[in-house]
Each structure stands twice: as structure tokens, then as C-alpha cells.
């Protein structure tokens, strides 16, 4: 049947795709999308653990709700920053935002 390993594998795959995107995309909004993808992969992981290892519990689900809330707040903040940066520099390509360079 479908057991925990399938879900964990799915979660790992999604996380890796998200990580690869976060590290290689040029567009700042695209990076934020990939971070969202990583967080959702985490959610799948949490729910899977609770469902298969502690069936009566809802710990994992509660944790996943927390993660969703935090992700929403963080994305709001991140988009605000991106808009502020765009207003100053007319660009959101990450390679051009390098003022902390030596």
C-alpha cells in the first residue's frame, strides 16, 4: 500500500526542487515562490508523520497550520521589501542587488 515512505519521498523531492529554485532563480519573486514550495513540502512531511506514526493525534496537523500562518506573514513582509527595492532600483534581479559586496 501507500506508506509513509512515499509521502516522505514526495516531500523530499518537492523540498529539493524548491531549494534548487531558491538558489538559482534570478527573479526575486520567483525565489519567494520557491521558498513557499519548500514550506509546503515541510507541511506534507509533518502531516505524513502524524498520520502514520501517531494516528490519534493531531500534533502534526496543528504544526502544519502554524507553518502556513507563518509562511503567509513572511511572504507579505518579503513582497513588501521587494516592492520597496524595486521602487529604488528599478530591478528585482538578484544579481543586481549586491550592495553588501566588498
Amino acid at each position, binding site marked *: 500500500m501507500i506508506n509513509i515512505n512515499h509521502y516522505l519521498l514526495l516531500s523530499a523531492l518537492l523540498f529539493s526542487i524548491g*531549494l534548487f529554485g*531558491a*538558489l*538559482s532563480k534570478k527573479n526575486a519573486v520567483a*525565489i519567494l515562490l520557491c521558498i513557499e514550495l519548500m514550506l509546503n513540502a515541510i507541511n506534507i512531511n509533518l502531516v505524513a508523520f502524524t498520520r502514520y506514526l501517531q494516528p490519534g493525534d493531531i500534533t502534526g496537523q496543528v504544526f502544519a497550520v502554524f507553518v502556513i500562518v507563518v509562511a503567509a506573514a513572511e511572504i507579505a513582509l518579503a513582497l513588501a521589501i521587494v516592492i520597496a527595492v524595486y521602487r529604488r532600483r528599478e530591478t528585482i534581479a*538578484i*544579481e543586481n*542587488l*549586491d*550592495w*553588501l*559586496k*566588498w
Partner: protein
Amino acid sequence: MMDKVWLVPFLPLAAFVLISFVVKRHKMASALTAIAAIGASFVISVGIAREALAGGLTMEKTVELGVQWIGLPGVFIEMGALIDPLTVIMLLVVTFISLLIFIYSVGYMHDDPGFSRYFSYLAFFTFSMLGLVISNNYLQMYVFWELVGLSSYLLIGFWYHKNSAADANKKAFITNRVADFGFLLGILVLFGYFGTFNFGELAACIRGCAETGFLTLAGILVFLGPVGKSGQFPLHVWLPDAMEGPTPVSALIHAATMVAAGVYLLARGYILFASSATTMLVIAVTGGFTALFAASIALVQRDMKRILAYSTLSQLGYMVLAMGVGSMTAGMFHLTTHAFFKALMFLCAGSVIHALHEQDIMKMGGLSREMKTTTATMVIGGLAIAGIPPLAGFWSKDEILSAVYENGPGIFGYNVLYVMAALTAFLTAFYMFRMIFLAFFGEKRSEHHPHESPPVMTMPLVVLAFFAVTSGLLGAPFVEHGFSSMVYFGEPHHPETNWTVMWTSVLLGIGGIVLAWLIYIRKAIPAESIARAFPRIYKVLENKYYIDDLYLWLFDHVVLRVAAAFNWSDRNLVDGTAHAIADGTRGLGRVLRYLQTGNLQVYALVIFAAVVFIALFAAAPVIGGVR
């Protein structure tokens, strides 16, 4: 009264604080504060002396009081007082002579703008000296030893706007520093070996110690302290220059008390020196040589105070010589009598200087007509130092000469030290009466009209003259319980009369006076012809054997060159290391800054890589990770 012994130094300290901060503006109030404090200390000292005599205090049965100051495991440092006959005699001498000199100073320093400052410094000095006298351990004595040196510095340079005074006080302090370095090494060596600073405990340890080599080393190191403080050769150079200070200061510090502190230390720690024959030989030879050396220089000096300074050096040599041949009693007895007649002679000189504003004896003469009291007391002082019976100097000098005659170490089979001491006695009588005859008798050579000093100055002279005459009876051979039965090392003894030595010293004394009279009063042999007959010897003596020039040359060529080497090493090695560290940090920074690419994704990649590494490490059982 003995439990109040700590008041003796602290009353003058209180006077110092009061004068410096409260009564400085009122001259007479400052003087009275100081005199009241020292007077009270004198009264307490007399009380202690009475208790000592009544209670049968002896060198073995002493009274010791102390409080702990620093108590660490292995290091116990106390502050305390030790009262035995030696302390009692020193307390009496110091407080009494200080009191007389304070009173004298009221007259001498009357017109000086620094009047209050003078009395505050004098009060500070008496605090330091009395603290030194009652100390019961080496460390506390060292603290007061340095304080006494500081007071001497302040008082020698009292007229600090004079370059000669400023140079003299520096010379005194630096010379004493050299000596005190050796002294401190000696104290630390003793502490390192025996674990205590206390005199009583050290005496017990030394008695049980058989390592003569170590004791000799410690003894010689500690002896360096008196070499500096009591002006023994080769660290005598500061004392004649110290005459730049006011004359009462010279009387108190550089004649009666401070320079005697070195001799007092020798008496206090006598068991350390007596435990090694080598140390005693070194002490005796140093003392004997200094006595003759200083007396020879005094022969040709023209400044009255310089003659007295070299005389002090010579008499200190006698005291150290006595200590070195085994007679602690004779040394301390001479210290007591010398304090009286030397202070007397310095105060008489001050009286003359106050009247004439002149210190060169060649420019004086015929003072006996107007300054009768000063002349009479000065002559009494001169007779005392020349060793004419029955004055004080005779008894104490005779005891020293007997001790040297009997116990003097044989060098090349002859009692060289006795010959040196006897010759010094002759020279002492001669140069002292040369000074007296030239200054007080004969025809007038100065333009000033001399007048006798006011009673506030002549009264101390009379009192001191009285003691210069009578204090010898303390230790005379015919006295039952005299000095030697109270202050001794080993066992109480009774001085015997050695008629050979006694007659020789009296004849030498009289001979010196007669020769001076022939040359300077009768002019039978003109002094100038003697000087012309031995020009080279005269020049050497006049330039004090060129020792000062030698020291100056050594300073320029050795000390300053060593200092330049250290300067080079400080600038290049020490500063170089600091610069190297700074430059290294900057260079490293210049290389590492390329890590800051400014590219956010590169930073994220680094974080990810680090997480992977940590996970791998945590999982590897070899490094202690999870199985």
C-alpha cells in the same frame, strides 16, 4: 604606656596632616602643632622608658605588639611594634633631639616663606623615623626606610628653586635607591628561605641554620641598606651634597637620626650579621675605611657644613666598624653620644650661618667675642668629638677603639683596622679644631657684624651641650648598670678599661687639637706651606678623591648606554610586535573580504552546504555522531 607605643609615630603624622591641610596659613600655629606632637611623643617615650626600667625589660624579655595586615596562605605580613632596650634608647634620642631642633627651627626659619611647609615635612620625617624605630619586622621597616628617604628628599630640596638643592636631593634619593635595592633583595631572600619577616622569628631561624654561605649572602645584601643610608663608602656621595638643605634639617636628619637608621638596622638584625665571619669582616672593613676616608677629605674643606658632613660620615664609619668587630653595644653607644654632639655642632653652625649668611670658614673669624654661647657650645662639641675625657665622645669612642683593638680581624697579621681607627681619631680632633679656630678665634675676616642668636636658638644649644658632656656617663666603665648591661648582643657585659687604648686615644685627641692650635692660632707652621708641599695630595683631597667625577663618567658611559639599548629594544622589538599584529590583522582582512560577494544566493548556498556537512558529521559514528 607601652601599649600606646603606636601613638609615638602617629602623633607627628597627625601633625603633618593638620599642618598640610588645616593650619598652613598660620605660621606659629603650624610650628606649635609640630612641637606639641613631638613633645607628646617624647613624653610617651619617657613613660615607656620608665616602664622598661621598672619592669625589667631586657634584650631577651621584650614586649611585642602586632596586628595582621595581609594574611594569605604562606604569606603573613603584620604591622607591629617591638619594644626592647634598643628601641627605648632610640625613641628617647630621636624624640628628644627632634623636639630641640623643632624649637630651634622656629628661630632659624623665621623669615622663610616656606615656614609651614618646613614644619609639615619635619613632622612627616619624625613619623617615618619613629615608625622605623618601633618596627618589628623587616618589611615594615623597609616601608619606613623608604619614607625616611622621601622625607630627606623633600627636606634637602626644601629650597627647590635652587638648582644645587634640586640636584642634591635627586642624588640622595637615587643613591639610596641603589642601596635599598640590595636591601630589598636581602629581605626577600630571607623571606624566601625562612618564610617570615619578623625579627624575633628570624632570629630563632638563623640560630638554627647552619648554611653559612646563604647567611653571608643575605647578610651582605641587607648590609647594602646601611651602606646607602648611613653613607658608607662607596655610597657616601650624597651626604655632603645634602647640606643644601636648611641647617636644622642637616642636624636632625643627616647627623643625629636618619643616617643613624642604618646603624640601628645593623643592631636590630645583628644576629644575621654575626652569624657569618665574612659578613662581619666586610662590615668592619667598610666602616673602618669610611672613617679614615671621610676624615681625610674633611681636612681640606672650607664650607663649615661640609666639614661637619664629612665628620658625620667618619663617625658613622666608626659605628659600623664597631658593629663589624662584634660590639653592637659600642656602636649603639656611639650613636647616642654622637647624636647629641653632632646635632649640637650643626645647630651651632646654623647659628653662625644665621648671623653671618656665610658658610666658608676662611671668611669667618673672631666670632668668640660676639657669639659667646655659640662659641662655648661649639667648643664643647668639638672636645666631645675629639674624645677628651670626661665628655661623652671619649667614653663611646674609647669603647669602640677597645673593641677594635681586641677583636679586630688580623689583616696580613696586623690590626690594620685599629691603626686606621686611631689615625682617624687624630684627624678628627685636628680638622674639627681647625674649623673651630678658623671660624671662632683669630682675627675677623668677614664684613658682616655678627650677633648672638635669639634664646629660642641658643637654649637648645645649651641643652645639647649638657648632654654632650654627660651622656657618656651612661656607659662608662665605673657605672654599675650602664649601657652595656641594657643594650647588648649575646649577654649583658660590663665594659673593661683597656688603659693602653685609653691613653693612646686621649693623647691622639690632644695631639690633634695642639697641632691645629699651632697651625691656625700660633701660625707656627703656615697652612699654605703644607698645601704647597704636597700639591697633588691636596688636590686629590679637595676633589674628594674624584669619586663624584667617576660616578658621573660611569653614569654617562654605562647607565645611559644601557638605557639607550633598552630604548632601542622597546621601540623596535616591543612596538614592532604590536605593529606586526595590527598589520597582520589588516592583511588577513584584505584577503578575506572577497568572501563578501553581495550575491544573496551564494550566501544561501553556503548555508545549505554547511547544513549538509553538519548532518554528515552528526551521522558519522567515527566522530561520535548518532549510530
